């Protein structure tokens, strides 16, 4: 388990408990269990307290934790008959975006999401979850297919943002994102989205313009990264804590603003401490969202999605 910066005090206590037990293993006659158990209790309490009142900046760190379940983990655990489909039929297959068809229980679905990778090699292959135009065009193609075959679409959002690269710009990053958002709004099948980690700006919207958007408790969704915002508005990238605060990028704030519909509780200490429970919780939420939309006609689905976004922003946050 990789500790985050704000978890250092916790790391110390857990380290001490571990040390005691290691000592006891070396000296069988010493009895440290009572002391170690007290430390365990202290650590558990601290973990609970820490995660009950995470600051927005701390949530950004949790949302980016490398051990959090990623798109691939959800797909592997939740779907059967998973069949990845590749390519934008134009230029390339973007590995930052996973897409394909599979079954959620018995129901055939299309799943699309950004995948960040889990080790150095896969992170590079996946471009850290930052899609290029081909990724959005793959998504567009798969959404069109879902529409043709009346399959609900599930999108899993986890990206620092669209890739700011030379080739990406040359090949129309803006146009690809715009078209992907447009396709989200057009399809006559239920589109449900879960922000599982980072919902980074336009790169996230292109997938998350959905009938229902759920968000993991400690994930974040923002127009700009706190670091980027700080360097522009504060002229100092080190002011990311203030920026994270001001941007209102947490699940609670976004629910109050009507931007997301549901919050999925994370296990104590965050998704990274119990991946299985997190994946199961997301699975329940996705099934429920899809189920509740499945009675609607194609027209109703399109109309309600459009209406939702047209009306968005009618409520601000309480003072």
């Amino acid at each position, binding site marked *: 388990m990789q500790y985050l910066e704000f978890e250092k005090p916790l790391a110390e206590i857990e380290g001490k408990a571990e040390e005691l037990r290691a000592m006891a293993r070396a000296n069988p006659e010493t009895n440290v269990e009572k002391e170690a158990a007290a430390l365990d209790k202290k650590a558990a309490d601290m973990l609970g307290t820490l995660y009950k009142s995470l600051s927005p900046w701390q949530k950004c760190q949790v949302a980016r934790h490398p051990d959090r379940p990623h798109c691939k983990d959800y797909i592997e655990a939740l779907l059967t008959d998973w069949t990845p489909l590749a390519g934008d039929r134009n230029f390339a297959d973007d590995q930052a975006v996973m897409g394909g068809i599979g079954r959620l229980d018995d129901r055939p679905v299309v799943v699309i999401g950004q995948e960040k990778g889990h080790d150095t090699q896969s992170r590079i292959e996946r471009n850290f979850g930052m899609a290029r135009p081909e990724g959005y065009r793959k998504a567009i193609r798969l959404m069109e297919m879902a529409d043709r075959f009346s399959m609900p679409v599930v999108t899993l959002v986890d990206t620092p943002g*669209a*890739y*700011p*690269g*030379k080739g*990406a*710009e*040359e*090949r*129309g*990053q*803006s*146009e690809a*994102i*715009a*078209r992907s*958002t*447009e396709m*989200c*709004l*057009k399809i006559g099948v239920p589109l449900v989205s879960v922000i599982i980690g980072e919902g980074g*700006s*336009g790169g996230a*919207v*292109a997938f998350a*313009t959905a009938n229902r958007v759920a968000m993991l408790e400690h994930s974040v*969704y*923002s*127009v*700009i990264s706190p670091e980027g*915002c700080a360097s*522009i*508005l*504060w002229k100092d990238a080190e002011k990311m804590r*203030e*920026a994270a605060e*001001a*941007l*209102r*990028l947490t699940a609670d704030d*976004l629910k109050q*603003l009507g*931007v997301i519909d549901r919050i999925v509780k994370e296990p104590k200490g965050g998704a990274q401490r119990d991946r299985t429970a997190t994946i199961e919780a997301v699975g329940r939420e996705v099934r429920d969202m899809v189920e509740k939309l499945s009675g609607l006609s194609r027209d109703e689905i399109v109309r309600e999605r*459009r209406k939702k*976004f*047209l009306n*968005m*922003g*009618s*409520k*601000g*946050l309480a*003072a």
Partner: protein
Amino acid sequence: MNWISNYVRPRINSLFSRREVPENLWTKCPECGTMLFHRELADNLNVCTNCDHHMGISPRDRFRLLFDGGIFTDVPVPQPTTDPLHFRDQKRYPDRLKAAQKATGEAEAMLVAEGEISRTPIVAAAQDFSFMGGSMGMYVGNAIIAAAERAVALKRPLILFSAAGGARMQEGILSLMQMPRTTVAVDMVKEAGLPYIVVLTHPTTGGVTASYAMLGDVHIAEPNALICFAGPRVIEQTIREKLPEGFQRAEYLLDHGMLDRVTHRRDLKEELVRITRLLMGLPPAIAGDLPKPEEPEPLAPAEPAEAAPPKADAAE
């Protein structure tokens, strides 16, 4: 002869000077450094007379140049909640808004109007880069929705002039939500069978480019306009190399298939008229179909037709 030189010029001069402080009679071209006298610059539609650099132009000035006789009607835009997030950086967001309102004399970063261009009825929306970098927040979203609804109600084409540094960060996620919101709006126009034409002006970047600015039936850009998703500085930091000359400029985007046309500001009106009339199935506009000048010269019988505009009701 250019219609602007014989008809609109005296009015434009007064308009441009209204916005510029009297002491500030000279503007330095940011591209070539030439000092330009404000009157000369205004006469040239805010285009540098030395290097053709297209400088910013306020939506109101643009509309006065675009619409016949400089006449147009503002389309009302519903006022959104001000400062929904209670955002504060080094300044309070409402203070930044007030300062921008004072500096521009406008309510927000987008102006919507209806009127006629060469007797072709249109709805137009123009983004104001001088208002907080033209940034897209709730108001800009509302403006585009209002423009789209008006275009659909009047069965007119929508022409949108984009100019923005991107999203209005002070509205956080709600500024991001303008990407889908404005997409719904422009799709309403398209689904009504009406043309949606985007004129991308310098600069059009970020979430604006990645939504309504890239969804037009026709994309026209002003010369050398910076048009991008990620800005050149961000890209240079990411890939750690210098970008080539002209990267992400209008001509470059034209080469890469993202635009239909790159058009000089002085030719823009004629082009927009021609394109909208073609797409709307209207006959060609009649040249010079402008309202009569305030003090028309008596028509000499032998004078060629374009010297004085014919009667305005000649079209359609």
